[in-house]
């Protein structure tokens, strides 16, 4: 199996606060990995570190052998667009949405890279097959959508590009149980022939049977990994 993402010795934080302590992990092609841990223990920060959005970071992060990490002490977000073009799609927790754009424009924005842009119509159709409720909302501004619909748009935006690594941050956050189930199911439909997916989630039951393995994160450090979910109820 070939590695898509390899993180080694990564620390990161905001200002004088150090959130991640010497994290190392690796994700292989075709894998769906659950990243579990309590609120405030660094799941989102790990994702933000991979996409270069934290204030400072240190350590190696490679995507298919290309170094996208390194030491950085200022300029959060300066390299993010480049990392995104390398094929990392972060579907963020706060959604980072374009409130005034319509759903259609929003999805098109996800296909911003030149190659993807030319195929945006076909790709949009695929997204609409995964998230049928969006079809009726195509011309609505995103700001008018409900939380669940917004989450679908965020995920859809991430799925539009040529992605090698999907980072899904708390897909169930703030959603009704039935809707979060649907969102997870939709994520399971995504083909991972070329890439891999990491889902950060607090709700273990939701991931049960969906992911290939779990990585636990606690206090900014990796605490245990497991192949099968049934063993893991007491893990964290």
């Amino acid at each position: 199996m070939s590695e898509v993402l390899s993180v080694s010795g990564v620390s990161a934080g905001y200002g004088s606060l150090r959130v991640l302590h010497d994290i190392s992990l690796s994700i292989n092609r075709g894998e769906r990995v659950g990243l579990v841990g309590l609120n405030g223990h660094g799941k989102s920060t790990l994702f933000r570190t991979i996409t270069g959005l934290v204030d400072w970071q240190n350590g190696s992060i490679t995507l298919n052998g290309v170094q996208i990490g390194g030491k950085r002490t200022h300029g959060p977000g300066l390299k993010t667009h480049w990392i995104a073009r390398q094929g990392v799609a972060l579907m963020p927790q706060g959604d980072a949405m374009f409130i005034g754009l319509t759903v259609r424009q929003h999805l098109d924005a996800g296909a911003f890279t030149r190659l993807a842009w030319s195929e945006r119509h076909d790709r949009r159709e695929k997204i609409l097959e995964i998230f049928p409720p969006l079809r009726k909302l195509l011309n609505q501004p995103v700001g008018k959508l409900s939380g669940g619909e917004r989450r679908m748009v965020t995920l859809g935006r991430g799925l539009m590009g040529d992605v090698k690594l999907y980072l899904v941050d708390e897909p169930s956050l703030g959603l009704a149980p039935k809707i979060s189930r649907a969102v997870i199911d939709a994520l399971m439909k995504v083909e991972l022939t070329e890439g891999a997916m990491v889902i950060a989630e607090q709700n273990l039951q939701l991931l049960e049977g969906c992911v290939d393995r779990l990585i636990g994160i606690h206090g900014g450090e990796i605490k245990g990994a497991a192949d099968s979910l049934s063993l893991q109820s007491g893990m964290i």
Partner: protein
Amino acid sequence: MDMFTLMSGLQLTCIYGILAIGVSIIWSSLGMLNLAHGFTFAVSGYGAWWAAITLGNSGWIVLGAGVATGGLVGLCIYFIAFLYIYDKPNYPIRALIATMAINMVGVQTLMWVFGPRMKSLPKVFGSGVVRLGEVVMTYGQMGTIICSVGTLGALLTWLGLSRRGLEIRAVMQNREGAALVGISLRTTALWVLVLTGALAGLAAVLLSQTFFVNPYAGMQPLIKGLIVALLGGLGSIGGAMIGALIIGFAEALTASYLGGQHVLMVQFGMIIAILLIRPRGIAGLLDESREE
């Protein structure tokens, strides 16, 4: 309201609208309050004047030279006030000071090179009068209105449909989200500053059909542009257009009924009143969806 007031109101609306949209787009996409916009405006007037005396009096040359000069100044602003400082802390304040410096140095340089004497541009749209029933318009007024409406229409269509347009609007809405889909703020900023510079150049040529070109020509339009952009709600293009309509007509009405010296007073009074009632300007009324 007599016809003259109506026509000059419409003309001012168009010019302020073009400037305000520039200010508004720059502010919301780059976080830069571009005080050098007035300088861009003044230089473009000189660029057009210079082209007119060296290259020829044709309307296309004058318009083209104004727009090109504006775009070029936008490029300079990109290098001086954006590229090397946008990743530093407190960028909005740094950019404010940098653009203010560009404005001061630039205006004094214009004064030094061209002297304080006013220059007049050739009539781009020719001189003459059109009668549409009751309404009497000079060619200049009609040309200004058609030209700016056409430009704004084209701009809005481009922003709505093209990939670059989507890029600019995405950055205006959410910079982090934009970075996450692979949009580079540096590239976007280059486009935004050149584009808004060119718009200011166009506005300069249009306004110089009625007023003279001089080193301080940019001051008043800059203030008006800022007022309109604030009134419309910074970042909203639709809001800026409505704001321009209100400010343009307020100016024409004040000038003809109270006298020109009251224009700024009335406008600032209006902006204070409106911002007290609607802190986000007109844009807050336009879309209820931007609650975040």
